[in-house]
């Protein structure tokens, strides 16, 4: 149809690209979405409570130990988390993508499970497991070794404990990036190396590792940013241990009487640091060819592990014990036990916790409804936004696409709670009074999920060489037609995976929600956080398990959608 039109219209008009209007529209929406709350953030960082411009917020920030300590803590925390994640996840990614290790698919599924587990839920589960006295692991340790009553193997309420728990739920980011990169890297380069006489080690060192390196570095970066901006796990584990991270410090500044100026000032260093890191990433990766899926392709090469096959499986499952098997076990135990720190037996088995959550807790139904509405809306809108923006940036379709890319990535540097405040300040006054409605939460979730969704879609776009589109356009297709018939089919699995990615990311979001919710717009994550503060671990376990079941349901559903060639594979996470 498009061709028919283009044959009829005069040649001069043929060149006009209607899509451009749509594209600029999206650009504008993005600017509003991100720039508005960010402007408020900057404005507040430089204003005093009484009004007027001041630098005093920053003076306090860099002179008082109550701010410097959390700053240092956060930096060390994020760095160690990032290193641990790379050490654990990169070999795992290689094992799964490039070897004949048994149970590779199961391993991927389990990593997905740890990825979709809300970090705050994991932190609570690890409280059940490794609280120094009541933790199940420490109890077992004392029973097995006969150690005295106040001896313990692990103390989760510590800096090391917090790092460990954050790493448990951050390593999937690195894993997925590495496994994906290795999945997509065609085997012909490695074949060439072998044919030319390179040993397996030479091939690995000169071909495979350099090809995977950008993914590892990107993973390290994502892990660092993730750990730096995480709120739930530190709030659950660091406060009992008696220290703050930047996010919990910022959050504490909103306790009565709120000090948004200081909080905004405290958030700016995080923002700047992230911008610098992103620049560094760009410099590292910018010169390397990313496009590995071109017109010609071949299957990845599989390395036979021989006798190491089963030890490799053991290693993977040993690692997966920490984010998945043990915490899930602890949650199930607490859900059906009268006392959360006791292993289920005939004496203490109970359905009361489930009854309580469904029939006594008046917030349950509304929280589930809100969470669902927000999850679906955010996932749909977020995927569309990410799709368009990554198209614009990877194909450099509009002037100023770099700014767009920056804007889409910038929210990764904004702790959710600070974005929450920015939105709060922006949308509690006319003309947009959104506070108290689900809309403000939608805006928050959309903004927060955009960087991840954008990164997903961008890497999907980057892996499809423009030559395919170019070929189509040279043959006379319009940009829209090229998108529809060439790019879209290649992107379908990525789009669906991104949708799921955003959905599961949204229903577990806590830090912005905790600033923006009202009693009418409470979501499950906030409900769980509230319950944790009053120590209702059994109810949390029930809610957490339901949340996990819903999450897995969505993932499985996406998995079953057969589109084109085959099922969507979770590797795209």
């Amino acid at each position, binding site marked *: 149809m498009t061709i028919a039109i283009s044959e009829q219209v005069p040649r001069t008009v043929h060149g006009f690209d209607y899509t451009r209007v749509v594209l600029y529209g999206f650009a504008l929406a993005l600017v509003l979405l991100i720039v508005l709350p960010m402007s408020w953030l900057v404005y507040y960082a430089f204003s005093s409570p009484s009004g007027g411009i001041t630098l005093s917020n920053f003076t306090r920030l860099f002179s008082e130990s109550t701010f410097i300590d959390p700053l240092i803590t956060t930096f060390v925390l994020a760095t160690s988390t990032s290193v641990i994640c790379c050490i654990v996840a990169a070999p795992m990614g290689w094992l799964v993508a490039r070897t004949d290790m048994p149970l590779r698919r199961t391993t991927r599924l389990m990593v997905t499970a740890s990825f979709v587990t809300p970090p705050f839920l994991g932190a609570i589960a690890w409280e059940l497991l490794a609280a120094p*006295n009541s933790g199940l692991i420490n109890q077992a340790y004392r029973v097995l070794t006969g150690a005295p009553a106040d001896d313990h193997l692990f103390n989760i309420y510590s800096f090391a404990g917090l790092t460990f728990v954050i790493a448990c739920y951050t390593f999937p980011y690195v894993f997925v990036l590495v496994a994906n990169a290795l999945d997509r890297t065609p085997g012909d380069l490695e074949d060439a190396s072998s044919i030319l006489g390179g040993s397996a080690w030479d091939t690995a060192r000169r071909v495979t590792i350099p090809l995977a390196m950008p993914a590892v570095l990107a993973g390290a970066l994502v892990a660092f940013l993730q750990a730096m901006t995480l709120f739930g796990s530190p709030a659950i584990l660091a*406060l009992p241990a008696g220290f703050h991270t930047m996010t919990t410090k910022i959050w504490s500044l*909103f306790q009565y009487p709120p000090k948004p100026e200081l909080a905004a000032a405290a958030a700016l260093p995080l923002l700047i640091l992230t911008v610098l890191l992103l620049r560094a990433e760009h410099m590292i990766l910018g010169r390397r060819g990313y496009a590995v899926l071109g017109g010609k392709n071949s299957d990845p090469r599989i390395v036979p592990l021989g006798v190491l096959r089963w030890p490799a499986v053991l290693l993977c499952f040993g690692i997966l014990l920490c984010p998945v098997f043990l915490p899930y076990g602890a949650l199930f135990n607490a859900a059906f036990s009268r006392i959360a720190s006791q292993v289920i037996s005939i004496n203490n088995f109970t359905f009361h916790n489930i009854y309580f959550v469904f029939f006594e807790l008046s917030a349950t139904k509304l929280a589930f409804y809100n969470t669902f509405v927000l999850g679906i809306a955010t996932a749909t809108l977020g995927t569309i936004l990410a799709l368009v923006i990554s198209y614009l940036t990877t194909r450099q379709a509009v002037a100023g696409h770099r700014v767009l890319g920056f804007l889409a990535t910038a929210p990764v540097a904004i702790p959710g709670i600070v974005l929450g405040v920015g939105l709060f300040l922006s949308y509690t006054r006319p003309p947009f009074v959104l506070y108290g409605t689900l809309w403000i939460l939608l805006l928050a979730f959309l903004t927060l999920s955009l960087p991840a969704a954008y990164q997903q879609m961008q890497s999907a776009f980057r892996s499809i060489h423009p030559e395919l589109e170019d070929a189509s356009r040279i043959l006379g297709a319009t940009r829209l037609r090229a998108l529809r018939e060439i790019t879209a089919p290649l992107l379908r699995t990525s789009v669906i995976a991104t949708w799921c990615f955003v959905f599961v990311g949204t229903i577990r979001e806590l830090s912005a929600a905790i600033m923006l919710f009202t*009693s009418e717009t409470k979501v499950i994550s906030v409900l769980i956080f509230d319950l944790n503060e*009053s120590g209702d671990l059994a*109810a949390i376990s029930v809610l957490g398990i339901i949340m996990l079941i819903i999450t897995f349901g969505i993932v499985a559903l996406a998995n079953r959608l057969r589109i084109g060639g085959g099922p969507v594979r979770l590797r795209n996470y």
Partner: protein
Amino acid sequence: MRRSKFSRRDILKGSSALTLGLSSTSVLFTSVLAAAPPAEAVTPALIEAAKKEGKVVYYTSVDLPLAEKIAKSFEAKYPGIAVRVERTGAERVFQRIGQEYSSKIYAVDAVNSSDAAHFIVWKRDGILQPYVPEDVAKHYAADHKDADGMFAAFRVGLSIIAYNTKLVKAEEAPKSHADLLDPKWIGKLIKAHPGYSGTIMTATYQLSRDLGWEYFEKLAQQGVMQVQSASDPPKKLALGERAVQADGNEYNVFQIKESGGPVEPVYAAEGTPLVIGPNGIFKNAPNPNAARLFQAFCFSPDCQQLIVDVGGQRSLHPQVKEKAGRKPLNDIKTLKDDAAAVEKMGEEIRAHYSKLFKV
């Protein structure tokens, strides 16, 4: 340095060994202008109007299971009116209402806070609705209700020391706040946070007034596990996570103990902080009739007996009986509560506290 706002006599009274009970409580409930509206009975018209509204939103800081029991018992008595409980720490409740009201969001109908100072602020801001249920007018002493009819003492509780009986023998248990500073308790204590919990805010004020901040300075050196809600220390004691709570709700200790949990309350030799949790309703309540009905219900003997029997609270309703096996309130040496002082010093207390405890 003692704050000059309190007379020496106040302090002596607070720390004297004599039982104070509740007769001497509360600067909170006195007012220059005694202009309470006349008591209102629960009429069929009110019930009908409340049913039309169909729901009531209750912000409260009382422990969630208890809050939901109050809600269920209201719903059973007045079918067709759903109670939505919004529970968080009193200081958060206060922040949330402030935040919502400054954005002109009027979501809350009725409120209960364990930091009575909040009601002074709300009253001063003119956002409370004067309403005096019959029970309050007839049965509550002037000390226990606002002279202008804005609120009344819904519940009374204590912030107590307690221990896990499996981890600590009765003879070795602490008897006083001073005992908690013994090195043998390093790493074994748990306490809640005044930035979250109204109970702990109130208790921190009273203890810092009567024992001095030195007490908290020393306590902060004991490797205390810091949790948020005053409901949490008793729960963590029951799990066996820590041996002794430095502060926390008496009522949760009762609940756990009476259902067979290994916890035991301690009434400190220096006196136990007394915490009054008033109930009030808002002028801009979205469900004004249901709010009134709910407020009236809260002060009824039924509800008051419920919060005592099931919740482990203390009630000021004279028809309510204390539950057997609990030490009667009048036999406990309590510290003097002073909501007005907490209102004035709240921020200072929070700042001082986080300096000492790092969170």
